[in-house]
């Protein structure tokens, strides 16, 4: 068949995976059926060969198992020193992860991938399992060679247990095994292996000696070998599939199968989950593990609930999505969910209910079959699972009645009320009995039962049912005041009444419980929403952290803190006051690890699980923004998978909010930079033009004088020299303006305020500008008595000079320029008016912008800073400046200066 184009998304995912892979170290697994097949030996041989080729190979941890041949192979290889751990009074030697990370060899040998680290030892190992240590090594770019037995693979664990009767405690998650880059199967025929065992060449730990005898039966060995071979073959198959997919050969890729495994609190759960894993792997399908929390199941004993937690976490570690649903009927809920999620196969265990119950309530299986169309349903048969409970019936009935729950004592009022209600109703009944049929009395009793069920729950309701029945019989059914029944039909009545009462109490109580559960769920969602909403409205890292801590500590009944890294990436304790919910004394070392690796650690995780708090990374799109540390008051608040998920969701929201704050800051900075850049460019463009022109004149004129001076006439020479002088004045003005503006902008100008007279300043300016104002008619209009103003005279002179020069530049020669000062209530109004063409079209405010020039380029020289400088100076003095067109024609530039009351001058004698 023709090649089908590979799915671009899948390919992209693959490329991304491969990119990530390229940076990681490679994992090579020496895989075998049992201990003793020679994995360590093969690994060492391989290492020696590599070393001979010049590769940097270091032995991280190898257990020689007392075999001389293995010991011999270790010679010549560099070995890392052991980490000595004191554990329960004994001294253990273990793998030193930090030494390995520090040494950073090309290849590191780490034996026994499934080994569990002694968590209670001193010093505490960082991770619970050695495979996690190896993960860290791989992340750091170190290639690791290791050994694994088939019984250590998680999903095969129960199969091996079934074969050998021995269940291994130490396991390696399937994901780790599957992601290994190379798996070398070390195969030894069972006969040879048994020979080795006889010869004492196989390492057996003392404690396991007896069990191992059992283990090493030939039948077991054959079966294990087959299992190991099959697992390796599966890997090859998967690799080939991937290859084919990449090449576009799509033939047998499963058309998106999705598996759903439904588990209950019974012992089948674990088996189902593992079976689900195997099936999902075989089908290359996504799989979901569903636990339906029916009201009945909410009342389970603690032990069963903990088992549920453990099951869901196992499911997650095997790669499933763990979901808890709520509902009254497990079957219906699962069916709905399966339809929603486009599940193709459902896996459930065998029904375990006794027959009589199956009559009353349809089994989950039955409901599933009824509720799903087109979905395969697989019932997985089971072995004999021993029940841990002595008397399941008793435990179940106690749980059923609610007696096993905390708060049992609170139930007693319910029973009391039940009795009271019955009595009350009896009284009522006595009143109405002459007028009503007996059947109505029965109805009245039923009402009492319903009310008690709604208010007090199942137990009291059932008690009330019986009581009501007894009362009905005793007080109303003939013969009165006796429990005998005269008419047999009343027996039927009783039976039906009781049944109805029980059903009603059941239903009502269920409804109540469900409402509770739904209410709880809704509350949690509402809290997440509340936090998200508050964060959206908050600005700044610190306020966000405080808000987050408040919400998290409330929802999870714990203390929390958000830790941020400093500029160097090191986690610091937060400064600032602590709020009631904030956690003090979080472990910075753990937090630092989380910050560096972007993975959760602490309570409820695989890394440093003995920590008191859980530490979650707050991951932004590009980096880890911080760490959320949570110390729960009740450990269960965090360990439940759905609670943990909720906590992770909270962390996710916090991270989003923090990232938003960070990005906003960056955007603002970028904007400011862009603006500055823009201004700088404008300035450079302006200056280069406005300096070049005078410079051209100056260099031209002066070079003429230098080279041809003698040949020029005196007048000509004078003219050239004059032009040089003039142009240099021009340039001086320009440079001065630019410098002034720079100083003003940099805030480097400190006003040198002193008492001055405006008329004096005006006079000074006019004198200075005498030459430049020559061409115009200058008029001065000042009142006789002007108050003194406290200004910086040099700067105000500058403003006047700029305004007057502008007027001169932009109006035709011979026209009038007026300098006027008026006194207003608390300020002076200074105006420079001209009789020229007036303001250019457009917003007059624009004129005061930097680099604005009335008519762009052209004859009028000047960088366009003059008015901007005026504005800056006037503003510094607390005044306003603006431009307007005069009614009589021409432009007027006006500015105000605030007037303070001047100190008095003593009169002369």
């Amino acid at each position, binding site marked *: 068949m023709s090649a089908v184009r590979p799915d671009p998304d899948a390919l992209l995912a693959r490329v991304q995976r491969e990119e990530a892979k390229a940076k990681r170290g490679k994992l090579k697994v020496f895989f075998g059926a049992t201990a003793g097949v020679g994995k360590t030996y093969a690994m060492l041989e391989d290492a020696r060969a590599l070393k001979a080729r010049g590769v940097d190979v270091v032995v991280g941890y190898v257990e020689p198992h007392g075999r001389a041949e293995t010991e011999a192979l270790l010679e010549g290889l560099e070995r890392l020193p052991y980490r000595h751990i004191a554990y329960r009074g004994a001294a253990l030697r273990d793998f030193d992860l930090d030494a390995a990370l520090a040494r950073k060899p090309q290849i590191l040998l780490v034996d026994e991938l499934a080994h569990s680290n002694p968590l209670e030892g001193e010093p505490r190992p960082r991770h619970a399992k050695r495979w996690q240590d190896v993960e860290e090594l791989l992340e750091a770019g170190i290639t690791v060679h290791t050994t694994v037995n088939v019984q250590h693979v998680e999903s095969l664990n129960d199969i091996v247990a079934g074969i050998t009767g021995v269940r291994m405690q130490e396991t390696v998650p399937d994901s780790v095994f599957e992601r290994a880059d190379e798996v070398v199967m070390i195969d030894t025929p069972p006969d040879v292996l048994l020979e080795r065992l006889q010869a004492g060449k196989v390492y057996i730990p003392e404690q396991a000696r007896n069990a191992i005898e059992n283990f090493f039966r030939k039948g077991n060995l054959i079966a294990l070998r087959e299992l190991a071979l099959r697992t390796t073959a599966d890997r090859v198959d998967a690799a080939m599939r991937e290859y084919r997919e990449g090449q576009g050969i799509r033939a047998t890729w499963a058309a998106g199968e999705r598996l759903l495994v439904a588990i209950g609190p019974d012992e089948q759960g674990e088996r189902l989950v593992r079976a689900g894993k195997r099936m999902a792997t075989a089908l290359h399908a996504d799989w979901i593990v569903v636990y339906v929390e029916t009201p009945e199941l909410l009342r389970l004993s603690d032990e069963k609930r903990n088992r549920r937690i453990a099951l869901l976490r196992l499911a997650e570690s095997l790669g499933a999505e763990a979901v808890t649903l709520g509902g009254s009927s497990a079957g219906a809920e699962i069916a709905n969910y399966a339809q929603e999620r486009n599940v193709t196969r459902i896996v459930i265990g065998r029904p375990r209910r006794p027959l009589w119950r199956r009559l009353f309530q349809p089994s989950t299986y039955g409901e599933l079959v009824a509720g799903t169309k087109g979905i395969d349903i697989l019932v997985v048969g089971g072995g004999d699972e021993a029940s841990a409970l002595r008397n399941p019936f008793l435990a179940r009935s106690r749980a059923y009645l609610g007696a096993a729950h905390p708060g049992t004592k609170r139930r007693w009022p319910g029973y009391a009320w039940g009795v009271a209600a019955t009595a009350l109703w009896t009284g009522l009944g006595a009143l109405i009995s002459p007028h009503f049929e007996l059947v109505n009395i029965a109805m009245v009793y039923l009402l009492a039962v319903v009310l008690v069920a709604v208010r007090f729950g199942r137990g009291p309701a059932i008690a009330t049912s019986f009581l009501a029945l007894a009362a009905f019989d005793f007080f109303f059914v003939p013969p009165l005041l006796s429990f005998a029944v005269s008419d047999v039909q009343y027996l039927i009545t009783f039976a039906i009444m009781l049944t109805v009462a029980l059903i009603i109490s059941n239903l009502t109580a269920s409804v109540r419980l469900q409402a509770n559960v739904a209410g709880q769920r809704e509350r949690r969602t509402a809290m997440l929403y509340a936090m998200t909403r508050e964060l959206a409205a908050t600005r700044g890292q610190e306020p966000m952290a405080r808000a987050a801590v408040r919400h998290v500590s409330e929802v999870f009944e714990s203390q929390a803190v958000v830790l941020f890294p400093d500029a160097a990436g090191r986690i610091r304790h937060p400064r600032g006051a602590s709020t009631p919910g904030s956690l003090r004394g979080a472990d910075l070392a753990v937090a630092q690890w989380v910050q560096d690796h972007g993975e959760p650690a602490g309570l409820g995780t695989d890394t440093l699980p003995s920590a008191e708090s859980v530490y979650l990374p707050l991951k932004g799109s590009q980096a880890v923004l911080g760490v959320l540390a949570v110390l729960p008051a009740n450990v269960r608040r965090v360990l439940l998978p759905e609670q943990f998920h909720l906590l992770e969701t909270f962390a996710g929201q916090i991270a989003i909010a923090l990232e938003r704050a960070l990005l906003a800051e960056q955007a603002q900075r970028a904007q400011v930079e862009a603006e500055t850049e823009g201004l700088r460019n404008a300035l450079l463009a302006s200056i280069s033009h406005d300096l070049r022109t005078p410079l051209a004149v100056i260099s031209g004129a002066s070079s003429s004088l230098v080279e041809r001076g003698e040949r020029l006439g005196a007048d000509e020479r004078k003219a050239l020299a004059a032009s040089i*002088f003039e142009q*240099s*004045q021009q340039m*001086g003005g320009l440079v*001065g303006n630019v410098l*002034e503006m720079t100083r003003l902008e940099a805030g480097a100008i400190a006003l*040198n305020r*002193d*008492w*001055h*007279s405006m*008329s*004096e*300043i*005006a*006079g*000074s300016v*006019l*004198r200075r500008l005498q030459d430049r104002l020559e061409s115009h008619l200058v008029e*001065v209009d*000042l009142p006789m008595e002007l108050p*003194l103003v406290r200004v910086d*005279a*040099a700067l105000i*002179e500058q403003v006047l000079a700029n305004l007057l020069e502008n007027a001169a530049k932009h109006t035709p020669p011979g026209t009038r320029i007026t300098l006027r000062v008026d006194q207003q209530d608390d300020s002076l109004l200074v105006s420079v008016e001209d009789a020229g063409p007036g303001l250019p079209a457009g917003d007059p405010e624009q004129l005061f912008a930097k680099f604005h020039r009335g008519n762009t380029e052209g004859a009028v020289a000047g960088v366009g800073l003059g008015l901007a400088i005026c504005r800056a100076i006037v503003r510094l003095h607390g005044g306003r400046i603006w431009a307007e067109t005069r009614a009589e024609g021409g432009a007027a530039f006006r500015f105000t200066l605030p007037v303070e009351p*001047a*100190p008095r*001058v003593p009169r*002369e004698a």
Partner: protein
Amino acid sequence: MTETRGTILVVEDEPEIRRFLRTSLATEGYRVVEAGSGARGAIDAGSQKPDLAIVDLGLPDIDGVDVIRRIRAWSPMPILVLSARAQERSKVEALDAGADDYVTKPFGVGELLARVRVALRHATRPGSGKPVLKLGKVSADLEKHVVKRDGAEVHLTALEFRLLACLAKHLGMVVTHRQLLREVWGPSHVEHTHYLRIYMKQLREKLEDDPVQPRHLLTETGVGYRLVAEED
């Protein structure tokens, strides 16, 4: 045959400016001694015995004001400072330290020469040398305390007169606010610049044709005042 009108010491580190000054001053008949640094200048002031010193305020090695102080410690010779634009404070500082006048860079050579002339003359004859000061239509007899404008007598208050007299003493040269306040009102009033504003205004109204654009009682913004008589 150029009669030297005196020796002028130029303390300036920029060789281009030194050259320009030398050319201009020499053309006017002065003998020019150049010093490229403040330290050199202070020494030459002693060894070369100039009649006037031109000191640039922006010297690299020691502060121009220091040079002025050193010279002032032992000599009353007139000192002109070259200052940059918008450096009022340094100008005031230099004047208070003993300089007599200043010229702001960039300057025209005419302005410089005028100031040199005035400074040299003041050294030999303080004030105008004559008891009667002529400022356009105004004639002021500083000895007899009589001021006439267009022949008619003008009444000046005691302080106004003292102010006029102080400026006349430094005729043609700038007098700082501080100096004026100290000499006219007393050392305890050196911060009261508003006095000066009021009184200068009063003087101008009485003596000038256009009080807003005076021709004789000139403002040196941020520094002080200068009284200019006709011949300048």
